[in-house]
């Protein structure tokens, strides 16, 4: 099977890439890992008269660094690189877990963090961990560089604030100290498939008391989101199994209130409640 025809350019620098994106009159797609885009290109409606701007040579958009502002992650860093990076494992273990589970070894070797976020699937594996970290996105156009919080960047399923002349170039994750983490993911088959429910949790304790809770869920709401009501409710309370049980039930209600009742609600609500309880227990160490 051959793909329909399209135009292809491989710029050597970020500036060239941004110029190509802004000058193109027809549909234009930045090509990162290609694990989503190359599949979409099979459709003639997508490929026809479009320009692909291959970002493969922009090595400046790869890699992970820790500086005084936290973790800086290049948008073209692959899932496999992130899952294996010691800095990600220690500073952002939720992201390392998510990156180690997305897709298959083959797609993790190609798929990039920037691609996963810009594609903006409601079930994107990396988004709930990035929401817990309150990640800031660095987005460039030929004229300007802007920064956006991830929750404001995501507009809806497969929709973001990124304009076609812009590129997501980096993520900045403010450093979290003394947090403990929990991550739960429900999927029909442990590889290839698409997550049905994702829960990412970070808790900060003083003794047994929770002083800060961050809780994000994916694949249950149109856009992955933090559950602020449950986070607020948990703050200042002593961690017990019954507290986590109730937090799970509250999370189920809060998520359904956001998505509206759907045919899957009788299944998803109690399952989300259990996954949130488990993630909290994992973070709480019991």
């Amino acid at each position, binding site marked *: 099977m051959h793909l329909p025809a399209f135009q292809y350019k491989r710029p050597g620098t970020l500036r060239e890439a941004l110029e190509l994106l802004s000058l193109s009159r027809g549909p234009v797609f930045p090509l990162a890992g*290609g694990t989503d885009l*190359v599949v979409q290109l099979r459709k003639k409606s997508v490929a026809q008269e479009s320009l692909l701007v291959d970002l*493969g040579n922009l090595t400046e958009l790869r890699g992970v660094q820790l500086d005084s502002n936290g973790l800086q992650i290049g948008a073209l860093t692959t899932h496999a690189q992130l899952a294996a990076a010691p800095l990600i494992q220690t500073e952002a273990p939720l992201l390392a877990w998510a990156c180690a589970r997305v*897709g*298959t070894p083959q*797609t993790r*070797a190609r798929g990039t963090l920037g691609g996963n976020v810009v594609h903006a699937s409601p079930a994107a594996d990396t988004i709930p961990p990035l929401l817990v970290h309150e990640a800031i996105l660095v987005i460039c156009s030929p004229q300007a560089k802007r920064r956006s919080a991830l929750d404001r960047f995501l507009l809806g399923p497969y929709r973001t604030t990124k304009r076609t002349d812009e590129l997501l170039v980096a993520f900045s994750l403010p450093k979290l100290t003394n947090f403990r983490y929990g991550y739960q993911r429900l999927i029909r088959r442990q*590889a290839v498939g698409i997550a049905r429910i994702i829960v990412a949790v970070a808790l900060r304790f003083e003794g047994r008391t929770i002083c800060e809770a961050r809780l994000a869920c994916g694949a249950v709401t149109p856009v992955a989101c933090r559950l602020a009501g449950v986070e607020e409710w948990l703050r200042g309370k002593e961690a017990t199994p019954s507290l986590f049980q109730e937090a799970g039930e509250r999370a189920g209600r809060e998520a359904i209130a956001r998505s509206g009742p759907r045919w899957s609600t009788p299944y998803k609500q109690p399952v989300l409640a259990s996954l949130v309880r488990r993630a909290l227990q994992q973070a709480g160490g019991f």
Partner: protein
Amino acid sequence: MEALSIQIKVNGHSHRIQTLPNRRLLDILREDLFLTGTKEGCGIGECGACTVLLDGEAVNACLILAPQSDGREILTIEGLAEKGFLHPLQKAFIDHFAFQCGFCTPGMLMAAKALLDVNPNPSREEIRQGLAGVLCRCTGYIQIIEAVEDAARALSGIAGDSFTQRKEEAR
């Protein structure tokens, strides 16, 4: 659509190839280089039949545009055996009857090779994870996993407990 010139190294041999950008690495391997051991199954990165190693990493050749492979080194199933000797993984797959129709086998072998290259002594769970990107609809996977365990032992110099050997011991 303009043709591009790409330079790739496949199984140790360098090739300069003229190609249109809408062809995939899979098309180059099968149609230009006649390396038809790499199979096309789903074409959307789910079945893993087209798995090859790109600079040592297992990837789906159906998801890589030909120009994206420019300057890279590729290993396909045809490059696995060395100097006429089967790779220990290939030997173990035969010993364990780790295939029936054989369509997924090149992908399985390349995924297993990528795994053992970075993790020479994987646990059973790590093998399952390493092979999770290749679907087999015949075997039920058990023989495949056992073959990879056996090949790992053979590669690390420990006497393989191959099926044939065990069969002989049973006599």
